[in-house]
């Protein structure tokens, strides 16, 4: 009986249990279904999205900078090269606590105040995964200590990079330029510029051939794990090293010329035939190697405050009135305009009175009646006052432009100044009329002219050859010579040969005949004859009172003294080199600039005498 009741009770409980358990089971089955649906939607529907995210997780592209191309001189000597540089880098995102890491680091490798300030600045500026340079030029010992302590230095990497080195120091800096860390304005879209220790050219060849020298960055595609550790390399594109640039300057010659040049002196030596820059001396200069490690504020101030402007290449950026060296332009303009004949004479009484002003000739007693050759030889000012009045400034300016004055010479030295040759239109643009009297002083190269020394050398080369020779520095890029630089590649100036020959002859007379203004420029036997023109440019008006007391430029304070100029080419019979010399406050062209030019010419000729004459161009020697 009990058993029976119990059995019935058991059946009842079992029935309830079964119903409830089926409900529970169905609920659980439904939740299993939900999980299956979730898996399906993540793995199937959103699979592509998550595949992409997984790829993003594991892949990391890193740029490899390419070694910068070198700059070689005419003989293949390195004037801008690379040396190995062991560096310590910090990747901010790879350390929990940047400050702690830096503190530990500075116990191993000391950081200066300057370093700390720079790191702090870069930490704010750069993205957190871009490594920034903590210290450069680490010694072996410092590298070893960093490696040993690596576990305590999360986020610190060491690597070896290249740093720019200029073996010639200050000798070549105005030609080669220097490199500096890129500023915002240097960002040209090349991602390699964001790499630590990257440098861009700041002046000269380094700047002009920046892209060629930089090369193309390589890239590695890496598989990285969650902390950024590289697991393996998936793909690699080798960097394309920058190409070497060969320039036309011979370092040894350049150094000889520089050694003789005093402060404030500029010497431009061109190959008169093909326009190659043989040397550009601008004294003083500075050491570009200082820029690799950073320039101190004091150093920068010292460079920029001084009147001698070491940072500026005065050959391309110094602006001077050309003085009497300009007289050939006036003469040629007069001949072309047919306002004067080569044998027409003009009388010089030592001065010209015009509009109530008296314009003096440098020879106070006057030159008498002079024709063009004599006027040039003696540098008669009155002759050119008169000629300029007849000719007018616009014709003179047009002639000067043809000889490379006041125009863009497209020299491969960035920042080269164009200079200025005034015209009526230029004066009118200033809201002032061009007065007839303005022609007078512009006839002797004084006034508003602003001419660079390299333009004067170009003028000299063009006088010597009659062709529109263009100065240039780059000889070869990546071993391939730059085309279009043979003498015959330059177009003729279309000046009658007779007129040109008259100029050359007068310039010959200046250096080699009695009555010439530059007897000191005469070359010794065996060098060929020199042809040149002197110039002395007043930087301050000489008053009548001074004149009457017996003015002498040698006795006034230095910064009041005139600039001394000389332009020349040689040998006269077959012009090979064109030179311009500008000595700031050098007093007198004939007395000081002319002998400096002669010495420079002899140095150049001596230097190349042993070598092939002016070093034949690669292309020419190939062509035979």
């Amino acid at each position, binding site marked *: 009986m009990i058993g029976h009741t119990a059995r019935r009770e058991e059946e009842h409980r079992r029935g309830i249990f079964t119903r409830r358990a089926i409900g529970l089971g169905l609920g659980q089955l439904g*939740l299993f279904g939900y999980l299956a649906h979730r898996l399906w939607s993540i793995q199937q529907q959103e699979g592509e999205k998550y595949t992409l995210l997984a790829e993003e997780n594991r892949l990391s592209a890193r740029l490899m900078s390419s070694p910068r191309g070198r700059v070689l001189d005419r003989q293949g000597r390195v004037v801008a090269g690379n040396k190995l540089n062991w560096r310590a880098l910090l990747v901010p995102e790879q350390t929990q606590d940047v400050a702690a890491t830096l503190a530990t680091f500075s116990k191993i490798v000391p950081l200066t105040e300057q370093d700390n300030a720079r790191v702090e600045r870069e930490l704010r500026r750069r993205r957190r995964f871009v490594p920034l340079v903590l210290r450069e030029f680490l010694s072996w010992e410092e590298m070893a200590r960093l490696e040993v302590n690596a576990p305590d230095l999360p986020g610190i990497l060491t690597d070896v990079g290249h740093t720019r080195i200029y073996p010639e120091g200050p000798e070549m800096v105005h030609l080669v330029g220097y490199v500096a860390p890129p500023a915002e304005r240097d960002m040209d879209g090349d991602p390699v510029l964001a790499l630590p220790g990257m440098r861009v050219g700041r002046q000269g060849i380094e700047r002009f051939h920046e892209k060629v020298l930089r090369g193309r960055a390589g890239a590695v595609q890496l598989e990285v794990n969650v902390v950024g550790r590289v697991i393996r390399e998936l793909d690699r594109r080798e960097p394309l090293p920058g190409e070497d640039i060969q320039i036309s300057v011979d370092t040894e010659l350049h150094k000889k010329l520089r050694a003789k040049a005093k402060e404030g002196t500029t010497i431009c030596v061109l190959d008169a035939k093909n326009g190659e820059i043989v040397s550009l001396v601008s004294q003083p200069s500075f050491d570009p190697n200082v820029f690799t490690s950073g320039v101190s504020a004091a150093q920068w101030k010292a460079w920029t405050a001084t009147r001698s402007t070491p940072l500026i290449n005065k050959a391309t950026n110094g602006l001077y009135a050309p003085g009497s060296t300009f007289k050939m332009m006036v003469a040629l303009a007069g001949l072309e305009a047919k306002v004067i004949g080569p044998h027409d004479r003009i009388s010089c009484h030592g001065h010209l009175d015009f509009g109530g002003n008296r314009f003096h000739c440098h020879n106070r007693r006057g030159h008498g009646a002079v024709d063009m050759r004599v006027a040039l030889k003696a540098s008669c000012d009155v002759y050119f006052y008169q000629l300029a009045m007849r000719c007018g400034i616009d014709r003179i300016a047009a002639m000067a432009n043809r000889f490379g004055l006041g125009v863009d010479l497209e020299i491969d030295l960035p920042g080269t100044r164009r200079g200025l040759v005034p015209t009526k239109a230029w004066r009118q643009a200033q809201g002032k009329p061009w007065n007839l009297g303005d022609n007078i002083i512009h006839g002797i190269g004084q006034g508003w002219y602003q001419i660079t020394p390299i333009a004067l050398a170009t003028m000299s080369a063009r006088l010597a050859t009659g062709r529109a020779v263009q100065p240039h520095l780059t000889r070869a890029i990546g071993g391939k010579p730059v085309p279009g630089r043979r003498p015959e590649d330059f177009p003729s100036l279309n000046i009658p040969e007779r007129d040109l020959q008259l100029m050359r002859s007068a310039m010959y007379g200046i250096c080699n005949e009695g009555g010439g203004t530059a007897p000191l420029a005469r070359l010794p036997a065996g060098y060929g004859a020199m042809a040149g023109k002197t110039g002395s440019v007043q930087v301050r008006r000489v008053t009548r009172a001074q004149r009457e007391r017996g003015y002498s430029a040698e006795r006034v304070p230095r910064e009041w003294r005139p600039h001394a100029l000389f332009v020349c080419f040689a040998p006269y019979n077959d012009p090979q080199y064109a030179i311009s010399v500008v000595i700031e406050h050098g007093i007198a062209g004939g007395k000081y600039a002319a002998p400096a030019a002669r010495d420079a010419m002899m140095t150049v000729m001596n230097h190349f005498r042993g070598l092939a004459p002016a070093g034949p161009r690669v292309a020419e020697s190939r062509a035979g």
Partner: protein
Amino acid sequence: MSGVYERRLLTEDRGFGLLQKFWQVPWGFALLICALAAIGYTALYSAGGGPEVYASKHAIRFGFGFVMMLTIAMIDIRIIARFAWLGYLLGIALLVLVLLHGNVGKGAQRWIDLGPLQLQPSELMKIMLVLALAAWFQRASYERVGNPLFLVPAVLMILLPMGLILKQPNLGTALITAMIGGAVFLAAGVRLWKFAIVLGGAGFLVPLAYEHLRDYQKARIRIFLNPESDPLGAGYNIIQSKIALGSGGLWGKGFLQGTQGHLNFLPEKQTDFIFTMIAEEFGLVGALGTLALLLAVVVFCFLIAFRCRHQFGRLVAIGLGTNFFLYVFVNIGMVTGSIPVGGVPLPLISWGGSAMLTTMLGFGLLMSVQVHRDVEFAAARE
């Protein structure tokens, strides 16, 4: 009707030998368990990049667990029922011990260090609770179950370990414990309106309770609601886990080819996130296959329950089946970003000695139910 019943009793009286019991073990179920352990081996092999890190030890632990499971299957279910309260007290004692001397893991006291084994008493407690509740309800008639006074001690039996687990603090496990207890209550025939009252009360109390949650628990819930809000913090695990799952696609990246796992983007890939290893390397096919096997385990538990002729066995099977189900659901729900991260391992697959021990203990009990499905308990009291 009564004749059949008598005959069954006679069979039992003739002696239910060890060999006969061994024959009664559900070998299909055992095979299923082995299959899941094999999947675990494979996944751990990949997680360790070879057998020596995790996989071999996993296999050894499973071997021990398997022997233990079969041993427990031989124990008479009535003896287990009689000493269920002892097991329950042991579980409570261990929970108290872990609060006093436990090892802290992730901001909570959860582990007891037993030398080779890191015991997690809350896992053991769930099984002991199922046994104790089943024993409590086993003798009660439907009418008795309807008596609220009869239910009070049972409710306290759930609340005591829940409170201790909350104190660790471990909100997830405490909730799971409550759900397992609830499942046993439901199957035992507790009136449905009583569940409605409890759930309603909970719904009222949850906002209040939220204020008393620990910060990490609040964060977990917030991040669950919007994982992308904190991609590098607590939400990181879920995002990386979903990336691993999603990038696996239909067929997966291939054995040992999972980038998320092998490049360590997956957090705790050998324990809580092991399922993502499977899903990444074997794709949706592998993931659903594993899920199907896990579902089969739950189905087996229910079948054992239905086949059992006594309430104790039925309730144990339902309780342990629900326990297993909750492990699976919370774990996979977590890695798919469907529920908050709970730190629950995937049974038989995840790395961990304590989990393996309790899982195999549960399977041993289930097998004992199956082996002793027809035994006669003392009659239910009115």
